[in-house]
């Protein structure tokens, strides 16, 4: 009996160790370096679904199959970083928010696409992409990604409510503040959304306003240029929208704002263009009552919508770089972006956005194109996440009335400079 117990215990321990070691080898088997397929990591959602559908189409005529893994926003980055830092290098095609790209480049995750892009120039048609995306994905003369998911800040409004209140589509931020107040007073519905949730949501909207006042984050990448009268004035003007916005404004992010507008709770919305498809869909409660416009301009006379978006890069560790590039070039071509629209895709191709038939079907395309052409992207730095974490809390404090606006900007600038000093 004693002998049997001893054997049983040793067996259990051996099984545990075997399971642990087995786990190691099983995950190692996913390594793209030894795999016979191309693995793509990208964000879930409509464009992700469209990319997956494109991969299915691609696989019908290619021996080297493409598998697309889709994750939520943050997990996409976490999996990518952990895949590279652990040496597993699971993915051949790296989907990324452009805000992450500089870090990916500096950490050696991405390969330059210059040579491959040059050879495939006819298919890629680089001039047909929104120019800001091409600029954004180019570092030191090297192209590190092809633009995939397009989104730009824009103004969306309820045509019926603006008519009811006798309000014109605002062209400046001062007009926007007045319009929001008038709409609330005359319709009883919140005049505007306000995306004020701390960190990226707050910063995307604030800088869409602040750049148009002439404020800047940095001029040299080494010190903050934020502490300026223009930045304070922009924050004060933006905050004037708060009384006309839903009460949860400082906890509202992009999907929450889109939900408020689509539920008929606000008369105007400031948000990224990729939230527009749901508003014009048949299931939308506001279908047929929505208009789209360029973002209001600031005192500089410019509109400065923040550019969001993702690119698809190729892993520097991939054994199938050419095959992966061929898929990416094909999947982001104007023809495939046109096809992808039906599957939830979002386009960043000028030809697709300006096509009259598309503009008829997707009523926000014309306004989106106008916003894209004036769009501004955040500084390319591997420390962008740190910079966000530095700027956002004081601005949030100021918006919630805990500190004066000028102090909010000054503290954000001071924290940002401290982050930049770390190098």
């Amino acid at each position, binding site marked *: 009996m004693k002998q049997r*117990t001893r054997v049983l215990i040793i067996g259990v321990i051996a099984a545990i160790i075997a399971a642990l070691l087995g786990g190691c080898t099983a995950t190692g088997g996913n390594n793209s370096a030894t795999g016979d397929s191309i693995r793509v990591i990208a964000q879930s959602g409509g464009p992700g679904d469209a990319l997956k559908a494109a991969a299915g189409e691609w696989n019908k005529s290619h021996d080297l199959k493409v598998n697309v893994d889709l994750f939520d926003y943050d997990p996409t980055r*976490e999996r990518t*970083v*952990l895949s590279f830092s652990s040496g597993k290098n699971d993915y051949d095609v790296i989907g990324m928010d452009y805000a992450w790209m500089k870090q990916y480049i500096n950490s050696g995750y991405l390969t330059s696409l210059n040579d491959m892009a040059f050879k495939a120039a006819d298919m890629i048609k680089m001039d047909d992409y929104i120019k800001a995306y091409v600029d954004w994905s180019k570092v030191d003369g090297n192209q590190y990604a092809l633009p995939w998911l397009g989104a730009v800040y824009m103004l969306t409004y309820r045509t019926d409510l603006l008519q009811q209140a006798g309000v014109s589509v605002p062209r400046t931020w001062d007009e926007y503040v007045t319009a929001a107040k008038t709409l609330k007073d005359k319709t009883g519905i919140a005049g505007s959304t306000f995306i004020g*949730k701390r960190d990226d949501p707050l910063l995307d909207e604030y800088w869409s306003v602040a750049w148009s006042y002439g404020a800047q984050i940095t001029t040299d990448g080494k010190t903050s240029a934020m502490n300026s009268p223009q930045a304070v004035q922009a924050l004060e003007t933006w905050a004037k929208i708060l009384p006309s916005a839903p*009460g949860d404004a400082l906890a509202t992010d992009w999907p929450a704002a889109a939900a408020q507008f689509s539920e008929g709770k606000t008369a105007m919305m400031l948000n990224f263009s990729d939230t527009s498809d749901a508003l014009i869909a048949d299931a939308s409660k506001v279908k047929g009552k929505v208009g789209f416009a360029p973002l209001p301009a600031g005192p500089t006379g410019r509109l400065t919508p923040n550019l969001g978006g993702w690119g698809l890069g190729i892993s520097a560790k991939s054994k199938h770089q050419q095959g992966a590039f061929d898929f990416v070039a094909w999947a982001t071509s104007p023809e495939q972006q046109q096809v992808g629209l039906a599957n939830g895709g979002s386009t960043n191709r000028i030809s697709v956005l300006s096509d009259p038939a598309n503009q008829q079907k997707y009523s926000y395309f014309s306004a989106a194109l106008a916003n894209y052409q004036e769009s501004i992207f955040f500084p390319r730095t591997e420390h962008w996440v740190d910079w966000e974490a530095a700027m956002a809390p004081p601005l949030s404090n100021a918006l919630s009335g805990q500190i004066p606006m000028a102090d909010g900007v000054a503290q954000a600038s001071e924290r940002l400079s401290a982050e930049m000093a770390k190098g």
Partner: protein
Amino acid sequence: MLLLAPAVLLVLGLRVVPIVVALGLSFTDANLAGGDDTAVRGVGFRNYSTVLSSTDFWSAVSTTAWIIVPALILEMLLGLAIALWLNQSTSFTKPFRAVSLVPYLLVPVVIGNFFRMFYSSEFGQLNYYFSLIGLPEQAWLTDPSTVRWAVVALEVWHTTPFVALLCLAGLAGLPKEPIEAAMVDGAGAWKRFRYIVLPELWPILMAVLVLRAMDALQLFDEVYVLTGGGPGRLTSVINLYLYQFGFRQFAIGQTSAAVIVVVMFLAVMSLIGLAFLRQRRRWTTETPRATDY
């Protein structure tokens, strides 16, 4: 000895090894965002110095204290009250014992999402009930004067059943004879509670308090979903600070240093908890019971 091997392996693998690894990493500049060939260098106590001199860290510590202290007080009071009520054997309290545990069984992320909708100024049930009695709408999650209390209320709702359960177990273990004797002597309910039940239950209450305090320090999921740490840094608890460094900036060396600081604090609290448990054990073995006579 061999019989203990699986348990020892599990404790070593899941508890000791990660802490030792974290301790080692806390003295390095390890950052997961680098590639697999990025060299990791020793930095001495620099990470600890950075963490302990960081205003964000101390802000997170004070925010955590601000939230968990009132939450713990309310949980203990409510938990004890519920336990005293459930300890009465009536036809209503028996099924309620099971029902009252439901909040504690729910996943924190689900609770966070539920409360986010509940507190919503536009769509929330709380403002709806306020409107029924003529009170104005509140922006519970963005008003600096209410947002921390909103988190406290969530935490109290979630974990009070756990406190009640442990208090109920403690009440069930109390000797009945002194209480019955006091009743015969004419002591009212309050006097029986004040002079018999509470002193006997005290060591258990203290142990529960320490357990809950350790658990509350790990508050993360609900706050992450509910407020994301805002507005400003008003609800940025310690674990949100750790998440920011660990999973957004991937500064694993610095995160490990912060984790070690938190673990040391938790270890002190564990020792206090164990001391209370030992006190309870000594008390139960040394104090003569009515049945001992």
